[in-house]
């Protein structure tokens, strides 16, 4: 009985919201706030989609799910088309396939990545899946090869360098020296915390406990920044609704 009543309330909330949305937009079009153009219609649709997604905050509903799935579809379609126009067309179609079929000088060397690319897609077949291994061997091998020297230089040596700064340069205040020591302690203790080959007992245990403290502070900072980021996204959407659609703020 209660469920029926809730459904009825939800139906009226949905109908009421949709009617209000239609009425507001009709008024905006009549008053000239929204122009009868693709831009005006676009703003109306964008506002509608924004509100439809926020309807999830009341409860999960079909409007939200429709928009969510539509978004996935459009994003997918956009990626495919942009990949064609920005990558495959200028890198393969124009320099290789067009000259090949028009009798002009083609860059034949591009046949190699083209076939390796096609082989990759054969991963979904049963009989030719072995060909995709050639591509994966090339891509992963290349990745591994360039990772080793570049990572050692960038993320190991260059990161160790500032951790081993001299504590006293001479003439500075005490605080930077303490900070330098704290950074060194933090880096070592966090590394020890993640080092599971040695039992965390005695001095190692103490250091790993200090590592937990450093990690907790950094997780707290990350939480604070995550709140900041999510709120910024919300603020941006509310600004869109209030400025671009409703026009109540400048």
């Amino acid at each position, binding site marked *: 009985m209660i469920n029926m009543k809730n459904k009825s309330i939800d139906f009226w909330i949905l109908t009421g919201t949709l009617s209000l949305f239609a009425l507001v937009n009709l008024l905006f079009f009549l008053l000239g706030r929204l122009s009868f153009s693709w831009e005006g219609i676009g703003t109306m649709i964008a506002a509608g989609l*924004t509100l439809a997604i926020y309807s999830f905050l009341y409860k999960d509903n079909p409007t939200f799910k429709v928009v969510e799935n539509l978004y996935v579809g459009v994003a997918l379609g956009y990626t495919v088309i942009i990949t064609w126009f920005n990558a495959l067309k200028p890198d393969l179609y124009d320099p290789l396939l067009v000259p090949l079929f028009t009798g002009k000088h083609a860059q034949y060397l591009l046949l190699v990545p083209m076939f390796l690319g096609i082989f990759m897609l054969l991963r979904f077949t049963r009989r030719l899946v072995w060909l995709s291994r050639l591509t994966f061997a090339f891509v992963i091998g290349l*990745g591994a090869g360039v990772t080793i020297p570049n990572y050692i230089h960038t993320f190991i040596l260059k990161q160790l360098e500032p951790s081993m700064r001299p504590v006293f340069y001479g003439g500075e205040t005490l605080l930077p020296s303490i900070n330098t020591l704290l950074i060194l302690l933090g880096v070592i203790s966090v590394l020890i915390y993640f080092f599971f080959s040695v039992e965390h007992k005695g001095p190692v245990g103490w250091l790993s406990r200090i590592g937990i403290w450093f990690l907790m502070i950094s997780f*707290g900072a990350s939480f604070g920044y995550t709140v900041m980021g999510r709120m910024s996204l919300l603020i941006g959407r509310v600004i869109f609704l209030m400025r671009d659609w409703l026009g109540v703020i400048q």
Partner: protein
Amino acid sequence: MTFQYFVPHPYSKAFLELMTRWDRIIAGFAVFIGVYSLFHLHWTRIRRKAAGWGYSIFVFLGAFITIAFGLYNGGEAFWHDKKEGTMFDWLFLYIQVPAGATIFSILAFFMASAAYRTFRARTVESTVLLLAAIIVMLGRVPVGALISQYIPLAADWIMGVPNMAAKRGILLGVSLGAIATSIKIILGVERQYLGGGD
């Protein structure tokens, strides 16, 4: 490619240029693996009439319309250069942009709710986490300086000293892991990427 790094000869550099060019062309095909996987997932849902299968139709609808307008390219067809201001661009600006931006902004509400309901100072460690979060949240917005001039300074210190040290520790650990995996791949110890396991 590892040895190439140490050989700055023009031939070596030309080899790197060629290999990276091939690699990024192959990466263009990889996009279609992702597309196939997603289509396959939603097609299976529709075929099996799984719960909420009707919504999966909208994935195909959105993708079909966007791809169709993309290929139509404002009347110039897809083998010509991309035209500006077409219906394809409109779909991006007025459907993908607002929907994408809004979906992720919903998390703002859930974070506020989680802050109220589950963020508890139960242990010393969680109290440290909570205090760091509060100082950073206040210190990173203009109002923090209005409450006390020390709050932004404390936030700066947290970010630049303990947070930086912990993040550097994690970075060193992750990088060493990536290097070790790369060596295992080159030596043939790690072969899972080829499929079928070891």
